[in-house]
């Protein structure tokens, strides 16, 4: 019989050596890149690389999260496979990125959820929907019988909803904050000036480094450039933020103006939610299509379940929300409401353990670079 503690020790050792292997590969590759530097114009990773001669763990975690997987350096690389140096920066970086999400996750044990992330998201969604459906049944009776007036709070009392989602949101925020703080402290670059903050914010919200350095975009299927990855990211991000804004406005309406839902189709919360939901759906579909068409060598194809799972969850959030809006006056409203809320709950709860984290770590890495860039380069290398 196998000894369970020994087995888990072995698993731990295996995981640790995989982490070390991924980091060692980034270090190996960057040693080659630092002697070449042809890719300096594409993004921030290579200029940041030139501030270093050796790549320790903190450098590797920072550079991996600074990498947007735009792919420009892979297709331009004279040392990419089949060259014996087998340089593939986006792939090496992608593997370490996943390791950093796992390592910095809070609480630590839940970092393991990144290992089978597609399954994590699927289970979380199924469980949350089941809970919301049971709750609806419990509080409201038959699920296929709507209270008059499309009144959501007749199904779930406002206080219950606010409490549940408030807790989930606060939890996700705390977990992500702890995670990204751990990342920040590993090689903290010093205080951020206003200029650095402004630059990092600009680079993050414009997704500058999906522009390829020349503005024609990044690579996807091959060496041709496309701006669609940036556009679909923008649709997804701003769509999500509009939905979020809709919820915030509704909260203000509820508490400050004492105007209770349901709101009319032309009201601000519904307009924001509708426009945001449509944007989010379009963005997710686009990103999904691009992801499926992406050259498997560009990035880590083992992360597909995590990537596509997250895209699917966002898309479900949008589609269930739009469906609910369309059929909120029907008998199916309680069912649609429970579905939508279940999906949103799953999204919130998995935020610190899903691809969602990439945006948070990316922003932190961009800020690190904006700070570091303003400090003098510690190296005064002569010309080659």
């Amino acid at each position, binding site marked *: 019989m196998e000894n369970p503690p020994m087995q888990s020790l072995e698993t731990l050792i295996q995981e640790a050596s995989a982490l070390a292997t991924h980091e060692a590969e980034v270090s190996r590759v960057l040693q080659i890149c630092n002697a070449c*530097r042809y890719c300096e114009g*594409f993004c921030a990773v290579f*200029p940041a690389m030139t501030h270093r001669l050796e790549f320790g763990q903190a450098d590797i975690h920072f550079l991996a999260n600074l990498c947007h997987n735009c792919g420009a350096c892979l297709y*331009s690389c004279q040392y990419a496979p089949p060259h014996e140096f087998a340089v593939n920066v986006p792939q090496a970086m992608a593997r370490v990125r996943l390791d950093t999400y796992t390592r910095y996750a809070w609480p630590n044990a839940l970092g393991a959820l990144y290992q089978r992330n597609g399954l994590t998201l699927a289970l979380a969604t199924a469980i949350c929907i089941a809970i919301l459906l049971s709750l609806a049944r419990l509080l409201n009776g038959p699920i296929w019988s709507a209270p008059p007036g499309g009144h959501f709070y007749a199904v779930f009392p406002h206080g219950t909803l606010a409490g549940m989602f408030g807790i989930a949101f606060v939890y996700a925020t705390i977990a992500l904050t702890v995670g990204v703080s751990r990342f920040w402290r590993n090689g903290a670059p010093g205080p951020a000036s206003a200029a650095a903050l402004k630059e990092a914010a600009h680079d993050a919200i414009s997704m500058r480094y999906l522009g390829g*350095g*020349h503005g024609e975009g990044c690579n996807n299927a091959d060496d041709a450039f496309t701006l669609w990855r940036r556009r679909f990211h923008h649709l997804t991000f701003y769509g999500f933020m509009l939905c979020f804004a809709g919820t915030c406005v509704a909260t203000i309406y509820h508490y400050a103006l004492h105007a209770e839902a349901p709101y009319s189709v032309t009201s601000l919360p519904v307009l924001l939610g509708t426009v945001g939901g449509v944007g989010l759906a379009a963005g997710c579909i686009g990103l999904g299509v691009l992801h499926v068409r992406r050259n498997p060598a560009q990035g880590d194809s083992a992360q597909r379940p995590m990537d596509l799972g997250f895209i699917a969850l966002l898309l479900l959030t949008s589609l269930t929300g739009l469906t609910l809006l369309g059929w909120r006056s029907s008998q199916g409203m309680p069912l649609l409401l429970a579905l939508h809320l279940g999906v949103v709950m799953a999204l919130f709860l998995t935020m610190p353990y899903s691809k969602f984290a990439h945006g948070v770590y990316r922003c932190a890495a961009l800020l690190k670079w904006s700070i570091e860039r303003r400090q003098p380069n510690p190296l005064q290398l*002569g*010309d*080659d």
Partner: protein
Amino acid sequence: MTDVLVIGGGNAALCAALMARESGASVMLLEASPRAWRGGNSQHTRNLRCMHDAPQDVLMDAYTEEEFWQDLLKVTGGMTDEPLARLVIRASSTCRDWMRRHGVHFQPPLSGALHVARTNAFFMGGGKALVNAYYRSAERLGVQIRYDVPVDAIELEDDRFVAARVGGERIAARSCVLAAGGFESNREWLREAWGQVNGEWVADNFLIRGTRFNTGRVLKFMMDAGADMIGDPSQSHCVAIDARAPLYDGGICTRIDCVSLGIVVNRNSQRFYDEGEDFWPKRYAVWGRLIAQQPGQIGYSIIDSKAIGRFMPPVFPGTKASTIAELARATGLDETAFVSTVAAYNAACRVGTFDHAVLDDCHTEGLSPPKTHWAQPIDRPPFFAYALRPGITFTYLGLKVNKEAAVHFGGRPSPNLFVAGEMMAGNILGKGYTAGVGMSIGTAFGRIAGTEAAKAARAAASATAKVTANAEAQR
């Protein structure tokens, strides 16, 4: 029948194919390598030397025709053709908009390359990004591209091109551009060209920085077919690179940039040249030849820890040791001889104010050969050694051309056979090198050859039509 056949798949070939296609010709391009290795040596390049009379986007100040010409005259020691060189120089000032139209992006100089900020426009992502852009543009314009097609013979009718032969296949065209590179990856030919020095076949120890597909087969064929040649087969762009570099395609990252910060010894632990003669960017192309002349074609660049962080990081870590004697053992050099060479050097150093950015006053006294600048004792451990080998970028032996890029036979230009790139760079570069000039030559002559080939194809087509019409009329 195809109008223009382009043999080769690097920068010059692509420029020719694009220009011919833009002139309305139907074009087929034959690349000897598989798709993954396409682009020849161009995939390892990084910039274009450009003349400009005023600041131009990524180029600072001015770099006039005269200054460019003087630079070329200096590096070649006069082994150049002034009218052709000036043609290249002028073309370099006007070609970049055309390059951009075909998808090439330029960027300011890379860190560590500021010494060419004024004279050279860098390709964003380097030469492979440029090659990719040209192939995409060529595909879009309808150039027929074939990979894995190494041409082994050309069918000629006197001085006219008729067809190319690839194994059993015959590919006929109205005109042809040869742009298939030099012969740097043909070991046999290199061996023959460099011959023996002190009983050693020196070229056996050369590494090739560039493509493994430049076997010079087309060049050899044309030579045997009686085409007019130019240049010395032992002349090439030859630099000292890390001895651990791969045999082919080591490219830029295998260079070792710490020579001027320390000393270089040969296999017998003896110094053989002034390491501090001039700034490294002006001297790196000399050291390949210097190492080639040493026993075993190997050298060892030796530095101490004062040099760390002062030169571009090498791709492989150096051999590290805490004493000079230990460094000798680790590198396999004779300990006594090595220790005494370092001691003699250290004792000869007259250290003034060290400054790697200027030709400083740190030099040796009473040492032969002297080190005239940046001479500091090698005394701060740890110490590092990097083994060096000659690395060939490309060879200069080529076909003689005129301003129309025409191949010549017995002093007469062929009406429909043209040549560009490394296969004719020797017309302009008899010896020596200056950064980015290979791409200037390839781009200028590639574009000329493409235009002329399209013109020749049109002339051939109308001549055929006339003959056919006459035959019809007579019937």
